[in-house]
Protein backbone atom coordinates (compact mmCIF):
# COMPACT_ATOMS: atom_id res chain seq x y z
CA UNK A 1 0.00 0.00 0.00
CA UNK A 2 2.72 2.46 -0.92
CA UNK A 3 1.71 5.88 -1.99
CA UNK A 4 3.39 8.73 -3.82
CA UNK A 5 2.17 11.23 -1.27
CA UNK A 6 2.44 9.66 2.18
CA UNK A 7 1.11 11.51 5.23
CA UNK A 8 4.17 10.39 7.22
CA UNK A 9 7.53 10.06 5.52
CA UNK A 10 10.42 8.86 7.64
CA UNK A 11 13.69 8.92 5.72
CA UNK A 12 16.95 7.43 6.93
CA UNK A 13 16.40 8.37 10.55
CA UNK A 14 18.96 7.59 13.22
CA UNK A 15 18.88 8.43 16.89
CA UNK A 16 21.58 8.01 19.50
CA UNK A 17 21.25 8.09 23.26
CA UNK A 18 24.83 8.98 24.18
CA UNK A 19 26.73 6.37 22.16
CA UNK A 20 23.92 3.84 21.94
CA UNK A 21 21.95 3.77 18.72
CA UNK A 22 18.23 3.65 19.42
CA UNK A 23 17.35 3.96 15.74
CA UNK A 24 19.60 3.14 12.80
CA UNK A 25 18.75 4.42 9.34
CA UNK A 26 15.04 3.80 9.66
CA UNK A 27 12.83 4.64 6.68
CA UNK A 28 9.08 4.21 6.60
CA UNK A 29 6.20 5.80 4.70
CA UNK A 30 2.65 5.78 5.95
CA UNK A 31 -0.18 6.61 3.58
CA UNK A 32 -3.27 8.55 4.64
CA UNK A 33 -5.81 6.16 6.08
CA UNK A 34 -3.28 3.39 6.49
CA UNK A 35 -2.93 1.34 9.67
CA UNK A 36 0.63 0.39 10.53
CA UNK A 37 1.43 -1.81 13.48
CA UNK A 38 4.99 -1.83 14.81
CA UNK A 39 6.05 -4.89 16.75
CA UNK A 40 9.32 -6.16 18.08
CA UNK A 41 11.08 -7.17 21.29
CA UNK A 42 11.46 -4.61 24.06
CA UNK A 43 14.35 -2.22 23.51
CA UNK A 44 14.02 -2.59 19.76
CA UNK A 45 13.34 1.13 19.28
CA UNK A 46 9.69 0.84 18.31
CA UNK A 47 8.45 3.32 20.91
CA UNK A 48 11.31 5.65 20.11
CA UNK A 49 10.39 5.56 16.44
CA UNK A 50 6.76 6.31 17.23
CA UNK A 51 7.72 9.20 19.47
CA UNK A 52 9.86 10.80 16.77
CA UNK A 53 6.74 11.22 14.64
CA UNK A 54 5.45 14.03 16.88
CA UNK A 55 8.97 14.92 17.99
CA UNK A 56 8.61 13.87 21.60
CA UNK A 57 12.04 12.48 20.70
CA UNK A 58 14.50 14.50 18.66
CA UNK A 59 16.39 12.65 15.97
CA UNK A 60 20.13 12.66 15.42
CA UNK A 61 20.07 12.23 11.66
CA UNK A 62 17.57 11.88 8.83
CA UNK A 63 14.30 13.54 7.97
CA UNK A 64 10.69 13.18 9.04
CA UNK A 65 7.87 14.86 7.15
CA UNK A 66 4.40 14.76 8.69
CA UNK A 67 1.43 16.05 6.71
CA UNK A 68 3.80 18.10 4.58
CA UNK A 69 5.71 19.61 7.50
CA UNK A 70 9.40 18.88 7.87
CA UNK A 71 9.80 18.43 11.62
CA UNK A 72 13.38 19.71 11.61
CA UNK A 73 12.53 22.87 9.71
CA UNK A 74 12.97 25.73 12.17
CA UNK A 75 10.07 27.64 10.61
CA UNK A 76 7.65 24.80 11.28
CA UNK A 77 5.62 25.30 14.46
CA UNK A 78 5.85 21.87 16.05
CA UNK A 79 2.80 22.63 18.18
CA UNK A 80 0.71 23.03 15.03
CA UNK A 81 1.93 19.67 13.78
CA UNK A 82 1.18 18.04 17.14
CA UNK A 83 -2.40 19.26 16.95
CA UNK A 84 -2.75 17.10 13.84
CA UNK A 85 -1.19 14.07 15.50
CA UNK A 86 -3.01 12.47 18.45
CA UNK A 87 -1.04 10.31 20.83
CA UNK A 88 -2.10 7.64 23.30
CA UNK A 89 0.39 6.52 25.94
CA UNK A 90 0.98 3.27 27.75
CA UNK A 91 0.41 4.99 31.09
CA UNK A 92 -2.68 6.99 29.96
CA UNK A 93 -1.30 10.28 31.36
CA UNK A 94 -4.71 11.77 32.00
CA UNK A 95 -4.65 15.10 33.83
CA UNK A 96 -5.55 14.12 37.41
CA UNK A 97 -6.71 17.60 38.40
CA UNK A 98 -9.35 17.71 35.67
CA UNK A 99 -12.56 15.74 35.34
CA UNK A 100 -12.95 13.30 32.46
CA UNK A 101 -14.88 15.91 30.49
CA UNK A 102 -12.32 18.63 31.23
CA UNK A 103 -9.52 16.30 30.15
CA UNK A 104 -11.16 16.10 26.75
CA UNK A 105 -12.13 19.77 26.41
CA UNK A 106 -8.96 21.41 27.75
CA UNK A 107 -6.95 21.38 24.53
CA UNK A 108 -9.80 22.33 22.12
CA UNK A 109 -10.78 25.26 24.35
CA UNK A 110 -7.27 26.56 24.99
CA UNK A 111 -5.67 25.77 21.63
CA UNK A 112 -8.48 26.02 19.13
CA UNK A 113 -10.47 28.72 20.87
CA UNK A 114 -13.57 26.56 20.99
CA UNK A 115 -16.33 27.82 23.27
CA UNK A 116 -16.96 25.77 26.39
CA UNK A 117 -20.45 24.84 25.21
CA UNK A 118 -19.20 23.59 21.84
CA UNK A 119 -16.30 21.75 23.45
CA UNK A 120 -18.59 20.11 26.00
CA UNK A 121 -20.97 18.95 23.29
CA UNK A 122 -18.12 17.53 21.23
CA UNK A 123 -16.52 15.89 24.26
CA UNK A 124 -19.80 14.23 25.17
CA UNK A 125 -20.05 12.84 21.68
CA UNK A 126 -16.52 11.45 21.89
CA UNK A 127 -17.02 10.04 25.38
CA UNK A 128 -20.18 8.36 24.14
CA UNK A 129 -18.18 6.94 21.26
CA UNK A 130 -15.62 5.37 23.58
CA UNK A 131 -18.47 4.23 25.82
CA UNK A 132 -17.73 6.20 28.95
CA UNK A 133 -20.14 9.14 28.84
CA UNK A 134 -21.60 8.31 32.25
CA UNK A 135 -18.22 9.08 33.86
CA UNK A 136 -17.92 12.55 32.33
CA UNK A 137 -17.86 14.41 35.66
CA UNK A 138 -15.63 11.99 37.52
CA UNK A 139 -11.92 12.50 38.20
CA UNK A 140 -9.55 10.05 36.46
CA UNK A 141 -8.36 8.51 39.76
CA UNK A 142 -11.83 6.96 40.10
CA UNK A 143 -11.59 5.08 36.79
CA UNK A 144 -10.17 1.69 35.94
CA UNK A 145 -7.17 1.47 33.63
CA UNK A 146 -9.30 0.51 30.66
CA UNK A 147 -11.66 3.40 31.28
CA UNK A 148 -8.77 5.81 31.66
CA UNK A 149 -7.23 4.68 28.40
CA UNK A 150 -10.53 5.14 26.57
CA UNK A 151 -10.73 8.68 27.97
CA UNK A 152 -7.16 9.23 26.76
CA UNK A 153 -8.23 8.18 23.28
CA UNK A 154 -11.18 10.57 23.41
CA UNK A 155 -8.87 13.34 24.58
CA UNK A 156 -6.56 12.79 21.62
CA UNK A 157 -9.50 12.63 19.20
CA UNK A 158 -10.86 15.92 20.53
CA UNK A 159 -8.22 17.79 18.56
CA UNK A 160 -9.60 16.16 15.43
CA UNK A 161 -6.21 14.76 14.41
CA UNK A 162 -5.34 13.34 11.02
CA UNK A 163 -3.04 10.74 12.54
CA UNK A 164 -3.27 8.73 15.74
CA UNK A 165 -0.19 7.27 17.42
CA UNK A 166 -0.60 4.49 19.97
CA UNK A 167 2.34 3.64 22.22
CA UNK A 168 1.59 0.21 23.72
CA UNK A 169 -1.89 1.35 24.74
CA UNK A 170 -2.85 -1.93 26.40
CA UNK A 171 0.43 -2.93 28.04
CA UNK A 172 -0.39 -1.38 31.41
CA UNK A 173 -3.89 -2.86 31.55
CA UNK A 174 -5.35 -5.82 33.40
CA UNK A 175 -6.05 -8.57 30.88
CA UNK A 176 -9.82 -8.22 31.16
CA UNK A 177 -9.64 -4.54 30.22
CA UNK A 178 -7.55 -4.95 27.10
CA UNK A 179 -10.58 -5.88 25.00
CA UNK A 180 -12.55 -2.71 25.70
CA UNK A 181 -9.62 -0.54 24.59
CA UNK A 182 -8.90 -2.63 21.50
CA UNK A 183 -12.58 -2.44 20.53
CA UNK A 184 -12.37 1.34 20.47
CA UNK A 185 -9.19 1.18 18.40
CA UNK A 186 -10.71 -1.25 15.93
CA UNK A 187 -13.72 1.01 15.47
CA UNK A 188 -11.43 3.98 14.94
CA UNK A 189 -9.52 2.02 12.32
CA UNK A 190 -12.74 1.14 10.47
CA UNK A 191 -13.61 4.83 10.31
CA UNK A 192 -10.50 5.38 8.23
CA UNK A 193 -8.18 7.01 10.75
CA UNK A 194 -4.49 6.90 9.92
CA UNK A 195 -2.99 4.88 12.74
CA UNK A 196 0.50 3.89 13.81
CA UNK A 197 0.43 1.48 16.74
CA UNK A 198 3.17 -0.05 18.82
CA UNK A 199 1.59 -3.05 20.45
CA UNK A 200 2.04 -6.64 21.56
CA UNK A 201 -1.54 -7.54 20.70
CA UNK A 202 -1.06 -9.88 17.75
CA UNK A 203 -4.79 -10.42 17.33
CA UNK A 204 -5.26 -6.70 16.88
CA UNK A 205 -2.34 -6.52 14.45
CA UNK A 206 -3.76 -9.36 12.38
CA UNK A 207 -7.24 -7.85 12.29
CA UNK A 208 -6.50 -4.18 11.75
CA UNK A 209 -3.06 -3.68 10.26
CA UNK A 210 -2.53 -2.93 6.60
CA UNK A 211 1.15 -3.48 7.18
CA UNK A 212 3.18 -4.83 10.05
CA UNK A 213 6.62 -3.43 10.74
CA UNK A 214 9.02 -5.66 12.64
CA UNK A 215 11.88 -3.94 14.45
CA UNK A 216 14.90 -5.14 16.36
CA UNK A 217 17.96 -3.30 17.63
CA UNK A 218 16.83 0.00 16.21
CA UNK A 219 16.31 -1.28 12.70
CA UNK A 220 13.31 -2.22 10.63
CA UNK A 221 13.92 -5.83 9.67
CA UNK A 222 10.71 -6.61 7.86
CA UNK A 223 7.60 -4.89 6.56
CA UNK A 224 4.75 -7.13 5.46
CA UNK A 225 1.00 -7.54 5.32
CA UNK A 226 -0.45 -9.48 8.27
CA UNK A 227 -1.05 -12.48 6.02
CA UNK A 228 2.57 -12.64 4.92
CA UNK A 229 3.92 -11.69 8.30
CA UNK A 230 2.19 -14.33 10.37
CA UNK A 231 2.19 -17.12 7.78
CA UNK A 232 5.54 -16.75 6.07
CA UNK A 233 7.88 -14.33 7.83
CA UNK A 234 11.05 -13.82 5.83
CA UNK A 235 13.65 -12.55 8.23
CA UNK A 236 15.10 -15.20 10.59
CA UNK A 237 14.80 -12.78 13.55
CA UNK A 238 11.10 -12.36 12.81
CA UNK A 239 10.62 -16.10 12.62
CA UNK A 240 12.32 -16.55 15.97
CA UNK A 241 10.26 -13.75 17.54
CA UNK A 242 6.99 -15.19 16.30
CA UNK A 243 7.94 -18.66 17.49
CA UNK A 244 8.43 -17.27 20.96
CA UNK A 245 5.14 -15.40 21.26
CA UNK A 246 2.66 -17.41 19.22
Amino acid at each position, binding site marked *: MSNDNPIIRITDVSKYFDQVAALQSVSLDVAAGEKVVIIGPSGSGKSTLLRTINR*LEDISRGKIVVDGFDLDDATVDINKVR*MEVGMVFQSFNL*FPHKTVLQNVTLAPIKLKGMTKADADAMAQKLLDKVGILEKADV*FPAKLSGGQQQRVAIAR*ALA*MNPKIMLFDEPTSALDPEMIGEVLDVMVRLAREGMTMVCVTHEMGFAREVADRIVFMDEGQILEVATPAEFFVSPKHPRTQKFLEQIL
Partner: protein
Amino acid sequence: MTKQCKTSVDPGHVVIDVGDGAAIPKPSDKGLVSAWRLSFAGALIVLACLLYFKPDPYLRIFKFVPDGILVTFQVTVYSIALALVFGLITGLGRISRNKYVNLVASTYVEIVRGVPLLVQLFYIYYALGRLVHVPDLLAAVLSMSVCYGAYMGEVFRAGITAVPVGQTEAARSLGFNRTQTMYHVILPQAWRTILPPVGNEFIALLKDTSLVSILGVADLLRRGREYASESFQYFETFTMVAVIYLIITLILSKLVSIMEERLSHHVKR
Protein backbone atom coordinates in the same frame (compact mmCIF):
# COMPACT_ATOMS: atom_id res chain seq x y z
CA MET B 1 -10.46 -0.07 62.93
CA THR B 2 -11.35 -2.91 60.68
CA LYS B 3 -8.79 -5.43 61.80
CA GLN B 4 -7.27 -6.12 65.15
CA CYS B 5 -4.21 -8.08 66.02
CA LYS B 6 -4.17 -9.51 69.51
CA THR B 7 -1.01 -10.83 71.03
CA SER B 8 -1.49 -12.74 74.21
CA VAL B 9 1.51 -13.46 76.35
CA ASP B 10 -0.38 -14.11 79.54
CA PRO B 11 -3.76 -15.08 78.08
CA GLY B 12 -6.33 -12.41 78.58
CA HIS B 13 -3.90 -9.75 79.77
CA VAL B 14 -1.69 -8.35 77.01
CA VAL B 15 -3.58 -7.00 74.05
CA ILE B 16 -1.64 -5.16 71.38
CA ASP B 17 -3.83 -3.25 69.00
CA VAL B 18 -2.09 -2.43 65.75
CA GLY B 19 -5.11 -0.82 64.15
CA ASP B 20 -5.89 -1.32 60.52
CA GLY B 21 -2.29 -1.50 59.40
CA ALA B 22 -2.01 2.02 58.08
CA ALA B 23 1.23 3.41 59.43
CA ILE B 24 0.54 7.02 58.50
CA PRO B 25 -2.53 8.60 60.07
CA LYS B 26 -4.92 10.19 57.62
CA PRO B 27 -5.71 13.91 57.85
CA SER B 28 -9.21 12.89 58.87
CA ASP B 29 -7.78 11.19 61.96
CA LYS B 30 -9.43 12.81 64.96
CA GLY B 31 -6.25 12.56 67.02
CA LEU B 32 -4.48 15.01 64.73
CA VAL B 33 -7.24 17.58 64.51
CA SER B 34 -7.50 17.84 68.26
CA ALA B 35 -3.86 18.99 68.56
CA TRP B 36 -4.78 22.20 66.79
CA ARG B 37 -8.01 22.59 68.73
CA LEU B 38 -6.20 22.01 72.01
CA SER B 39 -3.56 24.65 71.33
CA PHE B 40 -6.06 27.14 70.00
CA ALA B 41 -8.53 26.68 72.84
CA GLY B 42 -5.65 26.76 75.32
CA ALA B 43 -4.28 29.99 73.93
CA LEU B 44 -7.71 31.63 73.96
CA ILE B 45 -8.37 30.49 77.52
CA VAL B 46 -5.00 31.77 78.72
CA LEU B 47 -5.67 35.07 76.99
CA ALA B 48 -9.14 35.37 78.47
CA CYS B 49 -7.95 34.47 81.97
CA LEU B 50 -5.11 36.98 81.86
CA LEU B 51 -7.40 39.76 80.66
CA TYR B 52 -10.16 38.93 83.13
CA PHE B 53 -8.26 38.14 86.30
CA LYS B 54 -5.33 40.52 85.91
CA PRO B 55 -6.56 43.39 83.75
CA ASP B 56 -3.67 45.35 85.20
CA PRO B 57 -1.26 45.10 83.41
CA TYR B 58 -2.53 42.58 80.83
CA LEU B 59 -5.49 44.56 79.56
CA ARG B 60 -3.30 47.62 79.27
CA ILE B 61 -0.71 45.70 77.29
CA PHE B 62 -3.46 44.27 75.14
CA LYS B 63 -4.68 47.76 74.33
CA PHE B 64 -1.16 48.98 73.64
CA VAL B 65 -0.12 46.47 70.95
CA PRO B 66 -2.95 46.26 68.34
CA ASP B 67 -1.30 48.64 65.88
CA GLY B 68 1.74 46.36 66.18
CA ILE B 69 -0.45 43.40 65.25
CA LEU B 70 -1.62 45.32 62.22
CA VAL B 71 1.96 46.01 61.14
CA THR B 72 2.96 42.37 61.66
CA PHE B 73 -0.04 41.38 59.59
CA GLN B 74 0.87 43.84 56.83
CA VAL B 75 4.49 42.74 56.66
CA THR B 76 3.40 39.10 56.60
CA VAL B 77 0.79 39.44 53.87
CA TYR B 78 2.91 41.62 51.58
CA SER B 79 5.96 39.42 52.11
CA ILE B 80 4.03 36.21 51.42
CA ALA B 81 2.60 37.63 48.21
CA LEU B 82 5.97 38.88 47.01
CA ALA B 83 7.82 35.74 48.17
CA LEU B 84 5.39 33.59 46.18
CA VAL B 85 6.18 35.59 43.07
CA PHE B 86 9.95 35.40 43.72
CA GLY B 87 9.59 31.72 44.56
CA LEU B 88 7.74 30.86 41.38
CA ILE B 89 10.20 32.78 39.22
CA THR B 90 13.14 31.19 41.02
CA GLY B 91 11.65 27.70 40.83
CA LEU B 92 11.01 28.06 37.11
CA GLY B 93 14.50 29.51 36.68
CA ARG B 94 16.05 26.56 38.47
CA ILE B 95 14.48 24.13 36.02
CA SER B 96 15.10 26.32 32.98
CA ARG B 97 17.07 24.83 30.12
CA ASN B 98 18.60 28.26 29.51
CA LYS B 99 21.89 27.97 31.39
CA TYR B 100 22.15 31.67 32.20
CA VAL B 101 18.65 31.85 33.66
CA ASN B 102 19.44 28.69 35.57
CA LEU B 103 22.72 30.10 36.86
CA VAL B 104 21.15 33.36 38.04
CA ALA B 105 18.34 31.54 39.87
CA SER B 106 20.71 29.04 41.46
CA THR B 107 23.14 31.74 42.57
CA TYR B 108 20.31 33.72 44.13
CA VAL B 109 19.23 30.69 46.12
CA GLU B 110 22.77 29.86 47.24
CA ILE B 111 23.54 33.39 48.40
CA VAL B 112 20.28 34.03 50.17
CA ARG B 113 20.32 30.64 51.86
CA GLY B 114 23.85 31.30 53.03
CA VAL B 115 23.27 34.65 54.76
CA PRO B 116 21.22 34.90 57.98
CA LEU B 117 17.91 36.68 57.60
CA LEU B 118 18.84 39.17 60.31
CA VAL B 119 22.02 40.07 58.42
CA GLN B 120 19.99 40.47 55.23
CA LEU B 121 17.61 42.77 57.05
CA PHE B 122 20.47 44.90 58.31
CA TYR B 123 22.02 44.88 54.88
CA ILE B 124 18.97 46.10 53.04
CA TYR B 125 18.02 48.57 55.76
CA TYR B 126 21.36 50.08 56.67
CA ALA B 127 23.77 49.30 53.85
CA LEU B 128 21.33 49.97 51.05
CA GLY B 129 19.83 52.80 53.07
CA ARG B 130 23.07 54.71 52.66
CA LEU B 131 22.68 54.68 48.89
CA VAL B 132 18.94 55.05 48.43
CA HIS B 133 16.31 55.90 50.95
CA VAL B 134 14.24 52.79 51.64
CA PRO B 135 11.12 53.29 53.78
CA ASP B 136 11.05 51.02 56.85
CA LEU B 137 8.11 48.91 55.83
CA LEU B 138 9.39 48.45 52.29
CA ALA B 139 12.83 47.43 53.55
CA ALA B 140 11.21 44.91 55.85
CA VAL B 141 8.95 43.44 53.17
CA LEU B 142 11.75 43.40 50.61
CA SER B 143 14.20 41.52 52.81
CA MET B 144 11.61 39.06 54.07
CA SER B 145 10.38 38.24 50.57
CA VAL B 146 13.84 38.06 49.00
CA CYS B 147 14.83 35.59 51.69
CA TYR B 148 11.68 33.49 51.65
CA GLY B 149 11.48 33.69 47.87
CA ALA B 150 14.68 31.68 47.73
CA TYR B 151 13.35 29.01 50.08
CA MET B 152 10.06 28.85 48.23
CA GLY B 153 11.91 28.64 44.94
CA GLU B 154 13.33 25.34 46.10
CA VAL B 155 9.90 24.15 47.16
CA PHE B 156 8.42 25.14 43.80
CA ARG B 157 11.23 23.42 41.95
CA ALA B 158 10.72 20.21 43.91
CA GLY B 159 6.95 20.37 43.38
CA ILE B 160 7.27 20.92 39.64
CA THR B 161 9.81 18.15 39.13
CA ALA B 162 7.61 15.80 41.17
CA VAL B 163 4.90 15.94 38.50
CA PRO B 164 5.39 12.85 36.29
CA VAL B 165 7.06 13.52 32.95
CA GLY B 166 4.13 11.77 31.24
CA GLN B 167 1.96 14.79 32.09
CA THR B 168 4.26 17.06 30.12
CA GLU B 169 4.37 14.59 27.24
CA ALA B 170 0.59 14.30 27.15
CA ALA B 171 0.16 18.06 27.10
CA ARG B 172 2.88 18.64 24.52
CA SER B 173 1.48 15.91 22.29
CA LEU B 174 -1.86 17.72 22.27
CA GLY B 175 -0.11 20.83 20.97
CA PHE B 176 0.40 22.87 24.14
CA ASN B 177 3.64 24.82 24.10
CA ARG B 178 6.03 24.89 27.07
CA THR B 179 4.36 27.83 28.82
CA GLN B 180 0.82 26.56 28.30
CA THR B 181 1.85 23.13 29.56
CA MET B 182 3.33 24.67 32.68
CA TYR B 183 0.29 26.87 33.31
CA HIS B 184 -2.57 24.50 32.50
CA VAL B 185 -1.14 21.12 33.44
CA ILE B 186 2.00 21.17 35.58
CA LEU B 187 1.54 24.04 38.04
CA PRO B 188 -2.01 23.10 39.11
CA GLN B 189 -0.70 19.65 40.00
CA ALA B 190 2.54 20.92 41.53
CA TRP B 191 0.54 23.26 43.73
CA ARG B 192 -0.91 20.25 45.56
CA THR B 193 2.49 18.92 46.60
CA ILE B 194 3.81 22.41 47.20
CA LEU B 195 1.09 23.66 49.51
CA PRO B 196 2.04 21.87 52.76
CA PRO B 197 5.70 22.99 52.70
CA VAL B 198 4.70 26.45 51.45
CA GLY B 199 2.22 26.63 54.34
CA ASN B 200 5.10 25.91 56.70
CA GLU B 201 7.06 28.71 55.08
CA PHE B 202 4.09 31.07 55.59
CA ILE B 203 4.07 30.31 59.28
CA ALA B 204 7.84 30.57 59.60
CA LEU B 205 7.69 33.87 57.74
CA LEU B 206 5.03 35.23 60.06
CA LYS B 207 7.19 34.43 63.06
CA ASP B 208 10.32 35.78 61.43
CA THR B 209 8.60 39.12 60.85
CA SER B 210 9.40 39.69 64.52
CA LEU B 211 12.98 40.29 63.36
CA VAL B 212 11.92 43.50 61.65
CA SER B 213 11.30 45.00 65.09
CA ILE B 214 15.09 45.48 65.16
CA LEU B 215 14.60 48.00 62.38
CA GLY B 216 12.31 50.95 62.87
CA VAL B 217 9.20 48.94 62.04
CA ALA B 218 6.63 49.07 64.83
CA ASP B 219 5.41 45.50 64.66
CA LEU B 220 3.91 43.43 67.47
CA LEU B 221 7.24 42.59 69.11
CA ARG B 222 8.49 46.16 68.80
CA ARG B 223 5.36 47.52 70.46
CA GLY B 224 5.80 44.95 73.20
CA ARG B 225 9.37 46.06 73.80
CA GLU B 226 8.27 49.68 73.91
CA TYR B 227 5.70 48.87 76.56
CA ALA B 228 8.11 46.71 78.54
CA SER B 229 10.88 49.26 78.59
CA GLU B 230 8.45 51.90 79.87
CA SER B 231 6.79 49.77 82.50
CA PHE B 232 9.59 47.28 83.29
CA GLN B 233 6.92 44.56 83.21
CA TYR B 234 8.93 42.27 80.94
CA PHE B 235 7.40 38.99 82.03
CA GLU B 236 3.81 40.16 81.60
CA THR B 237 4.47 41.91 78.31
CA PHE B 238 6.24 39.09 76.58
CA THR B 239 3.75 36.54 77.88
CA MET B 240 1.05 38.58 76.18
CA VAL B 241 3.12 38.96 73.00
CA ALA B 242 3.80 35.23 72.85
CA VAL B 243 0.12 34.35 73.30
CA ILE B 244 -0.91 36.77 70.56
CA TYR B 245 1.71 35.38 68.16
CA LEU B 246 0.53 31.87 68.94
CA ILE B 247 -3.09 32.73 68.22
CA ILE B 248 -2.25 34.42 64.89
CA THR B 249 0.00 31.54 63.86
CA LEU B 250 -2.63 28.96 64.72
CA ILE B 251 -5.22 30.81 62.64
CA LEU B 252 -2.81 30.89 59.70
CA SER B 253 -1.99 27.20 60.02
CA LYS B 254 -5.72 26.43 60.08
CA LEU B 255 -6.20 28.43 56.87
CA VAL B 256 -3.39 26.47 55.22
CA SER B 257 -4.84 23.11 56.23
CA ILE B 258 -8.28 24.14 54.97
CA MET B 259 -6.74 25.02 51.60
CA GLU B 260 -4.87 21.73 51.60
CA GLU B 261 -8.04 19.79 52.27
CA ARG B 262 -9.88 21.58 49.46
CA LEU B 263 -7.16 20.76 46.97
CA SER B 264 -6.84 17.09 47.85
CA HIS B 265 -10.61 16.76 47.98
CA HIS B 266 -10.76 18.15 44.48
CA VAL B 267 -8.54 15.40 43.14
CA LYS B 268 -9.37 12.35 45.20
CA ARG B 269 -13.09 12.86 45.63
